[in-house]
């Protein structure tokens, strides 16, 4: 039975590969008559950033990005909703290893710097808020694993505020545009660059927080809520 | 309504007995409701006496539109019904105990209403309605006494009555279609004209034959009549069986040409019943059963007369009064005989012999003694039958008639014998005597002054 299942599954996957490959080749052979690249080039200067990917991400298709951040916030939220601890640091992991500690003291500022650079560079070359946020989160992970105290981030309200700040700023900008008579998510052409930078900064912070929170959140509480209606 | 009695009288003659159950059903009013029994048919009697000319009454709002009428034939039946129920009612006042009195009163009233109504009804639906009312209510009278006998008799009665009703209903349905009219008067013509005439005639002969005790349809009669309380037996045997006869007269194609063989068949059936009943009757041990068989026997003779009317369209006008006369005679006499069964012989010797003479009187009348109603009826019958053209077994007719008389004699003798043996000695309420006496009076005296009789005698 198992063998049959294995065989069938493998066969199906092979079939999928063949079909997909054929489709890919078929598509590759067809002529594309899209005006998208021209439009993109034409609109790039109005976008407020120079790098096309960032422009697409944060201006042309900023709605996608907004929702994407929403997804991240959800994940972070769902993560901490399951967590029993509110703190980002784990006392059990606090290390007394002085070498590691010293190393970290060197690494952390460098990584922070790197994050800032990535963020700034995003405007004209590969980089941007997500990359910066990821580095930020990595810094946090490192600090946690290394046992650095992170008391500066208060659990609870501050944590949640951190989670949501990027998203909130993004949204605020979006709606301000709408209130000023533009479409939802439209930036005034003159301020586009500045606004995008603001959003990116806030996003970086939030993304870092979320990824860190997700890393931390998973310990377990022993407290059980009785299932719905199961009686006391 | 041409010269008819006041409407209120017509209404009262039906409604009084019909609504009487409401009075009878009241608990605690025993003496009043019992006392009212003989009064119930009084309006009807008055109506019959006052209606010197035929009248017709249209009641289009009732049922499917109904018509009531009273002609000579009906008047005669109405008289019989009213008289007999009245006397039996009077008798019942003294006869009934307290037990189930209310129930008896209810069914008595309903049966009476049905019996009176069917006489007055001139359209199919009303007739059928009253007939059914009488049939079903009489069941209550039959089983009144209770016990196994009564229950068995009741079951036989109701089954046969239902079969009769169904046959009747089927006949009426067919007749209504083919005749295109709901009036009884137009029934005969409708039947005669229809291709289904044979079917309808058969259905009617059977349907009413059950009530009239035609041979093979008679089984219920010797069972039911004896078990009923005596006054009820009297009306069952005296009045209600006559409803069957009236049904025949009203529904069969009498007066139409071409029903000779049917008439002949009916005559044969009638004689068969008349003679056969005597054979069974004389071996009975209960005077009431003997009387029941005697009723079958007498009804057989009446069936002979109906058959004769069916056979000879030309003679109808002569035959109808004869039939009415015979019915009247038999009803009154039979009523007397039944009521006598419930009597008690008083102590005084002289009184006893006088009483026996009186007791014998209706019996002798039945036999056809001179100066009795029976003699007149028999003579009329013989006269009417003898002049008929091509009667079957024409030669045998006198013989058959004599045989019938003989049968009657045998039954009456047997009845007298049983009565002699079984009649108790003691005292009974006066109203019983009064009822019986009144019945006897009607049969022996009033009879002669009744309009129908006068009509026949004047012929």
């Amino acid at each position, binding site marked *: 039975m198992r063998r049959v299942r*294995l065989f069938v599954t493998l066969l199906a996957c092979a079939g999928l590969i063949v079909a997909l490959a054929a489709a890919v080749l078929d598509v590759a052979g067809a002529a594309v008559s899209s005006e998208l690249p021209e439009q*993109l080039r034409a609109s790039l200067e109005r976008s407020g950033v120079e790098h096309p990917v960032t422009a697409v991400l944060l201006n042309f298709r900023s709605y996608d990005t907004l929702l*994407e951040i929403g997804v991240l916030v959800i994940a972070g939220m769902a993560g901490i909703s399951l967590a029993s601890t509110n703190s980002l640091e784990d006392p059990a992991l606090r290390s007394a290893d002085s070498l590691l500690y010293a190393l970290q003291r060197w690494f952390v500022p460098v990584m922070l710097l790197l994050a800032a650079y990535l963020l700034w560079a995003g405007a004209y070359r590969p980089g941007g808020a997500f990359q910066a946020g990821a580095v930020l989160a990595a810094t946090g992970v490192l600090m946690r694993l290394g046992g650095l105290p992170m008391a500066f981030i208060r659990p609870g309200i501050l944590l949640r505020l951190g989670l949501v700040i990027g998203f909130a700023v993004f949204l605020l900008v979006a709606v301000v545009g709408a209130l000023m008579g533009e479409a939802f998510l439209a930036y005034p052409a003159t301020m586009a660059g500045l606004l995008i930078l603001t959003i990116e900064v806030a996003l970086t912070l939030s993304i870092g927080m979320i990824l860190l929170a997700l890393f931390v959140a998973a310990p377990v509480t022993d407290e059980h809520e009785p299932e719905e209606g199961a009686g006391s | 309504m041409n010269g008819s009695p006041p409407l209120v009288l017509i209404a009262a003659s039906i409604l009084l007995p019909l609504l009487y159950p409401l009075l009878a059903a009241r608990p605690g009013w025993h003496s009043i409701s019992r006392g009212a029994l003989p009064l119930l048919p009084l309006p009807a009697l008055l109506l019959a006496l006052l209606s010197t000319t035929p009248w017709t009454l249209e009641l289009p709002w009732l049922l499917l539109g109904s018509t009531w009428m009273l002609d000579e034939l009906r008047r005669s039946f109405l008289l019989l019904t009213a008289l007999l129920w009245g006397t039996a009612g009077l008798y019942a006042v003294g006869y009934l105990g307290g037990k189930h009195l209310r129930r008896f009163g209810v069914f008595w009233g309903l049966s009476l209403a049905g019996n009176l109504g069917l006489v007055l009804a001139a359209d199919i639906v009303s007739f059928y309605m009253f007939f059914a009312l009488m049939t079903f209510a009489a069941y209550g009278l039959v089983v009144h006494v209770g016990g196994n006998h009564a229950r068995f008799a009741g079951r036989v009665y109701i089954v046969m009555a239902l079969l009769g009703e169904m046959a009747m209903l089927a006949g009426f349905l067919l007749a209504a279609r083919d005749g295109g009219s709901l009036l009884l008067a137009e029934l005969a013509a409708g039947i005669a004209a229809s291709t289904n005439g044979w079917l309808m005639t058969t259905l009617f002969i059977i349907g009413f034959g059950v009530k009239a005790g035609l041979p093979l349809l008679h089984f219920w009669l010797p069972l039911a009549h004896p078990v009923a309380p005596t006054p009820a037996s009297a009306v069952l045997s005296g009045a209600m069986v006559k409803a069957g006869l009236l049904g025949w007269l009203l529904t069969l194609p009498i007066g139409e040409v071409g029903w000779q063989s049917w008439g002949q068949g009916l005559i044969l059936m009638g004689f068969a019943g008349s003679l056969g009943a005597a054979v069974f009757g004389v071996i009975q041990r209960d005077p009431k059963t003997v009387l029941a068989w005697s009723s079958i026997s007498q009804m057989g003779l009446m069936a002979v007369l109906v058959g004769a009317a069916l056979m000879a369209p030309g003679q109808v006008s002569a035959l109808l009064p004869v039939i009415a006369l015979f019915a009247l005679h038999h009803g009154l006499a039979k009523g007397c005989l039944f009521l006598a069964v419930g009597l008690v012989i008083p102590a005084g010797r002289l009184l006893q012999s006088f009483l026996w003479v009186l007791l014998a009187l209706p019996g002798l009348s039945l036999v056809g003694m001179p100066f009795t109603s029976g003699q007149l009826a028999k003579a009329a019958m013989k006269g009417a039958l003898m002049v008929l053209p091509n009667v079957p077994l024409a030669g045998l007719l006198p013989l058959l008639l004599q045989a019938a008389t003989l049968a009657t004699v045998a039954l009456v003798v047997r009845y007298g014998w049983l009565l002699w043996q079984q009649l108790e000695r003691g005292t009974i309420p006066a109203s019983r005597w009064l009822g019986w006496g009144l019945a006897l009076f009607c049969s022996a005296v009033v009879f002669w002054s009744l309009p129908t009789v006068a009509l026949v005698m004047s012929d």
Partner: protein
Amino acid sequence: MSSALLYALAGVALCGIGLAGFLLLNHLLRRLLAFNLIGSGVFLVLVGLAQHRGGPDPVPQALVLTGIVVAIAATALAVVLIRRYFHLTGRTSFKAESEGDGGGAGS
């Protein structure tokens, strides 16, 4: 055949392999990895197919970036759930319980 198309075909292969893994593996983490494999395959197809002729197209790159973030979010959430599930039940797969009646049997 351009190199971009090669990427796309590699992505196709990844999809197939990932799907097989997803369907055949029981361990939850492995399934999650298989899912990530499929995800990578899809992104490769998306980017590779779109820019197999001529210059880079920034739109699919941006899409893929978004897709990656979404995938990361989902993966992270899944990891949290798996860890907690493991902690509560000591199980690393669905198999242990009877199939089809997962919701009913609560504490």
